[in-house]
């Protein structure tokens, strides 16, 4: 699906920057652009003037699908009581290594 601009400022895009190889891209902010190429060039000029990173992702804002506030409790609370997913829940006998 190609993004077509529908307003004088172009569409809204979200910008993600990867600071160093190996670490995840982080949300830096948003900007306006008429297409992907333009969004990439603008992201470079707006969000990487201080050596913030070495890779840029741009995504049209409307493509971001987000969980809602109403869903928050049912989405995230149930994970809180599953302590057994964390290694600290388990007892390791003294002297036993590599566990």
């Amino acid at each position, binding site marked *: 699906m190609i993004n077509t601009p529908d307003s*004088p400022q172009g569409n809204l895009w979200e910008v993600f920057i990867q600071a160093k190889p190996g670490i995840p891209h982080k949300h830096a902010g948003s900007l306006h652009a008429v297409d992907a190429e333009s969004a990439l060039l603008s992201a470079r000029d707006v969000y990487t003037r201080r050596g913030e990173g070495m890779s840029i992702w741009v995504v049209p804002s409307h493509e971001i699908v987000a969980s809602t*506030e109403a869903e928050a409790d049912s989405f995230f609370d149930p994970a809180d009581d599953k302590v057994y997913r964390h290694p600290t829940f388990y007892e390791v006998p003294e002297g036993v290594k590599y566990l």
Partner: protein
Amino acid sequence: METAEREKKFQEKIDSGQKIEAKEWMPDNYRKQLIRMISQHAHSEIVGMLPEGNWITRAPSLRRKAVLLAKIQDEAGHGLYLYSAAETLGIDRQTLINQLLEGKAKYSSIFNYPTLSWADIGAIGWLVDGAAIVNQTMLSRGSYGPYCRAMVRICKEESFHNRQGYEIIYQLANGTPAQKEMAQDALNRWWGPSMQMLGPSDAASANSEETMKWQIKVESNDTVRQRFIDRTVPQATAAGLTIPDADLKFNDATGHWEIGEIEWEEFYRVVKGKGPCNRQRLEARRKAEDEGAWVREAAAAYAAKQAQRQVKAA
């Protein structure tokens, strides 16, 4: 959920220090106050490019020219981050720009003053950005996530603005007699408006009650102003300059610098449109917008054509 209950939960979140994010429920007035504040802040950054932009071509050394360009470029970026933050609240950038250009939106009064000498560039970086830093540091502790994050980013960039301004003023104040005079004259003209720019006392400020309750602002204008004054007076002394306030004195009991009367009549007049450069500032922004319309339209037209070509090729 009933509105009253939603408002109660919302206030609890605010009081507990939790940030509010874009897609969450919020009272209409919270949204309105934020849009007002954030957009005024954004407009200020953009209009603020103009008084300093006035001296780019006349910067007196290549280093100063490069630094000034980078600084003003940052202001454009700040405006951009702030319009983006406002857009998370359901209003688009073009609408906000139109409000500014139609004279319906306010922006910081300080940018309606002329830059008459190179020393003014120093004064702006030192005083105006200095005050902005104190204010923005406070705002970054506010309740609305996107605005706070914009403030954090802006504060990081703003500190060089402040230093470069002070560096200019200090150099001038310790230079030739003509340079020193230039620096003192700039301070004489920019001090008063800098005192006004952090806004009236909260008793006189219509929006303060709501913005404080909802922690959009976390400290009063007077508190922020006092912090700025206490930091700045010693900086003036260190540069060998005199603050143009005969009533300025240090209060040993409170440990604060006390200033004379602030010219609130001037502040309100300038905010309402009758300052030295209000007309010129808006004219410049309207001109940029009008003369740039064909570029924006062409960019959109090309993008649409390319999209068509890609569909056809597929």
